[in-house]
């Protein structure tokens, strides 16, 4: 299947400076961009249609380095836009999206202005393997697009 999607960066008049990556949800009967036609869709809209979700994209808002992570919820894969899929993929059951931003704010006792603020995007999925065990695969992605394979 051709998973190529033209990314819509039309973000209208919303203030989005606080976000580095935007999401795009590809359902079996349509697509929702986080920002389109001048308005923001809440992630709740994805949750409301989670059983129809096939692919979930996370891409850099400025297109930096063409960073675009894709979670394939049909096969249970995480890939980038130009990566090749493996020929064989372990059969996975009950594949569920994992996506959130973790915000870590450090403050000083004498001055509550933020001393540091770190935002990491957690992206992946959990599934049941053939023995029924629940497993999680999560990338932790920083705002520069660096990522590690995390465990939560």
């Amino acid at each position, binding site marked *: 299947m051709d998973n190529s999607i033209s990314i819509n960066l039309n973000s209208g008049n*919303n*203030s*989005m400076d*606080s*976000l580095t990556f935007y999401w795009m949800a590809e359902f079996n009967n349509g697509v929702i961009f986080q920002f389109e036609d001048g308005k*923001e869709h*809440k*992630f*709740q809209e994805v*949750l409301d249609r989670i059983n129809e979700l096939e692919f979930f994209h996370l891409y850099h808002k400025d297109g930096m380095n063409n960073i675009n992570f894709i979670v394939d919820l049909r096969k249970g894969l995480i890939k980038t836009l130009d990566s090749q899929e493996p020929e064989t993929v372990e059969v996975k059951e009950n594949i569920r999206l994992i*996506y*959130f*931003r*973790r*915000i*870590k*704010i*450090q*403050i*000083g*006792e*004498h*001055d*509550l*202005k933020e*001393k540091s603020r770190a935002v990491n995007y*957690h992206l992946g999925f959990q599934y049941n393997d053939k023995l029924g065990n629940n497993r999680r695969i999560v990338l932790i992605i920083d705002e520069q697009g660096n990522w590690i394979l995390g465990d939560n």
Partner: protein
Amino acid sequence: MSATHEFSESNLVGEVVMDGITNLNFGSVDDHDLSTTTYPILRGSSSFEKYLRCKFTGVYSIISNMKFWKSAGTLVTGETIKAATNQVYTQPSATANGDSDVPVTEGAALTLQSAEGEATIVYGASGVSGYTKYVRLQLQTTVSTPSGAVNQKTFVFQYDEV
């Protein structure tokens, strides 16, 4: 867009709420944004308790996994910082309470609930205020605590958002 947050402190018998506080100084008065020079804590005494909350505004879907801990700031001899989470507000006291020491690692962090007692804060849901429950903090000293200013502490507030 994403959620924005600010810290809020409550004081006095009738609970005076002050959003957007600028410091978390411990002192000998039940007030927010206090000056430690004006209201120092005497050796062997405790500060007035601080009832701290976070308040979320802006646009978001769900806030969850809210945690609080101390990440830096060496305690001097006899100095401890006590902390308890998900407290009901009562008038702050300067009597040493029996709360636990504030955690100093993420793994031991205090877990915060919403003001409504839920693990998550759902944007726009009926009856949701955007506040967390209270974290109660108190700085306690002993007579062996050296005089003079103590070290500044660094705290971490962490949450997950979609």
